[in-house]
């Protein structure tokens, strides 16, 4: 009976795992980067109690070089705190969260420069008897600033808190952007780790003739692929756990659904992308071609599968295609478990399809696999 530490499957798995954990860049891109991304996006897009809106304001051509005050500036002089050339108005609302409007008085040309740089989203051209608003109607941020400014000038600063009693803030878990984001990032992590970790490793080893050297021994070929997938799966599990623990501690993200369902879907997702990775890497021994093949698969899915934003923003006819992409199925499944309290019965079909996709891809990949 051969000792387990002398068994080729153990040695191959240990070797692949050692290669992963000994490469600092793998640790950075696999562990640190997703956490940084979750932190950055979570902070940037999660609604906080106090927000600021910056608006540029300039006097029209008839008043720009005069000390005569125009309509909005007259209003702001009476209703705001002025520091340097910025008028600040604090709109208070306990339920919505306070909003601080900063009106930056400047020249017309500088106002447009500020808009182009994204420092302001709205420009007010201030006249003697009224104001004009310059902004991009497609920008929701600009439209919100426009609504706040018009109401402010029309009704005064108290307008913002006048209808507070009508507002009932959501206290449901899983409705924040970060609740949407984390399951998407976990799904994307599986795809990226498999496609780069398995496909690229195989192509690289083929190009270095290591595969050829290995199959010139009594090594069982399936052990090599199985070990590579096992090492990658173990690392994916660690990466996902670290990302989840961060999201749980820092953002309070919780799994409302069934843990078992989550584990099943996680395994199915890994099977899907492991199989796809074997298929992607089955032929080429050129790492640059490999780069292209992997990117051609992962980039479109990363963009359309709703990792960062809902894919329902795409045209309806594409949504029916997008929701059957492997990454979408994993991300959607994770979200229903995290945020909607889903159980095994809600995700078993997705898990089954993902497992089939992985198995079929693996078998095709193995059939056409070039060992040298």
């Amino acid at each position, binding site marked *: 009976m*051969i*000792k387990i530490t*002398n*068994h*080729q499957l*153990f*040695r*191959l798995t*240990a*070797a692949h795992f*050692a*290669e992963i954990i*000994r*490469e600092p860049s793998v640790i950075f891109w696999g562990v640190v980067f997703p956490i940084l991304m979750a932190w950055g996006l979570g902070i940037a897009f999660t609604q906080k109690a106090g927000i600021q809106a910056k608006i540029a304001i300039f006097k029209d051509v008839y008043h720009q070089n005069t000390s005569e005050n125009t309509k909005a500036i007259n209003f702001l002089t009476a209703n705001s705190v002025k520091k340097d050339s910025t008028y600040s108005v604090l709109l208070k609302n306990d339920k919505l969260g306070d909003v601080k409007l900063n009106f930056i008085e400047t020249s017309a040309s500088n106002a447009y420069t500020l808009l182009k740089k994204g420092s302001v989203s709205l420009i007010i051209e201030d006249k003697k008897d009224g104001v004009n608003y310059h902004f991009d109607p497609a920008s929701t941020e600009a439209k919100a600033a426009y609504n706040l400014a018009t109401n402010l000038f029309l009704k005064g600063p108290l307008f913002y808190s006048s209808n507070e009693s009508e507002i009932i803030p959501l206290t449901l878990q899983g409705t924040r952007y970060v609740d949407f984001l984390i399951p998407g990032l976990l799904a994307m992590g599986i795809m990226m780790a498999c496609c780069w970790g398995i496909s690229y490793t195989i192509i690289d*080893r083929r190009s*270095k*003739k*290591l595969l*050829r*050297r*290995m*199959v*010139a*021994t*009594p*090594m069982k070929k399936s052990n090599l692929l199985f070990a590579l997938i096992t090492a990658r799966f173990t690392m994916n599990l660690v990466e996902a756990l670290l990302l989840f623990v961060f999201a749980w501690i820092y953002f309070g993200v919780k799994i409302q659904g069934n843990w078992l369902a989550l584990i099943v879907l996680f395994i199915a997702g890994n099977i899907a992308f492991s199989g796809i990775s074997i298929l992607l890497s089955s032929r080429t021994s050129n790492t640059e071609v490999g780069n292209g093949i992997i990117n051609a698969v992962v980039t479109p899915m990363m963009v359309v599968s709703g990792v960062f934003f809902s894919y329902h923003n795409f045209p309806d006819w594409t949504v029916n295609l997008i929701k059957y992409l492997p990454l979408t199925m994993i991300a959607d499944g994770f979200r229903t478990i995290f945020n909607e309290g889903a159980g095994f019965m809600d995700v078993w079909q997705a898990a089954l399809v993902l497992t089939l996709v992985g198995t079929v891809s693996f078998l095709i990949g193995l059939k056409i696999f070039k060992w*040298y």
Partner: protein
Amino acid sequence: MTNLEYIVEVRKVKKSFKDVKAVNGVDLQIRPGEFLALLGPNGAGKTTLVEMIEGIQHPDEGEILIDGKKWKSHQQELHHMIGLSLQETRFMDKLTAYETLRLFASFYKLDSSRVNEVFKLIGLGEKKKAFVNNLSGGQRQRLALGVALLNKPKILLLDEPTTGLDPNARREIWNILLDLKKEHNTSLILTSHYMEEAEYLCDRIVIMDQGNILAEGTLEEILTITGGHRSLDDLFISLTGRHLYD
């Protein structure tokens, strides 16, 4: 236990890649314990021939017998009998030399005691814990040789084992091979660009070009038969019009 005259027999073997005839009807026999050098410039067909003997490539025509057996029907058995070092193989960068040998040892169901023996054999004991990417070119070649020797092969196939090495590193490899010749009855097929390597190590020399064998025999035989050339390099130029290292 077979007791054949030849450990390797190559019979009328042909191999083409698209329009290129890499090996064009070659016959070759190697005796047990014999060291044979395959010399020829790039594209001569040496590597293709060696890879067919290794079972990595398959001949289009002809047959190859190793210890009287064919690859098709005795793959597992022959893998255990052969040790090889391919041209420019790169092992996993982030494994240590020891881990690399343990990995390959596991393919032959060998344990750490054989790995330690091989480290002594290749004189790389002090680099056991060094990562592969921190080894010099010569040390990597010795590691590749160590991998080839793990299973105590009856036949050793080395494809340009000293290409790119400085003279000292080259000599270290030669000494390991000469020790093997002395202590075991290992047969060696070696491809090389280097005349002195063939002269120093091998009992018999085969000169190939464009998929054909141009001359074959001991160094003296070849030089005599082909018209009393002073050196292999002179002979090679007269046979092919090119230097061996072209």
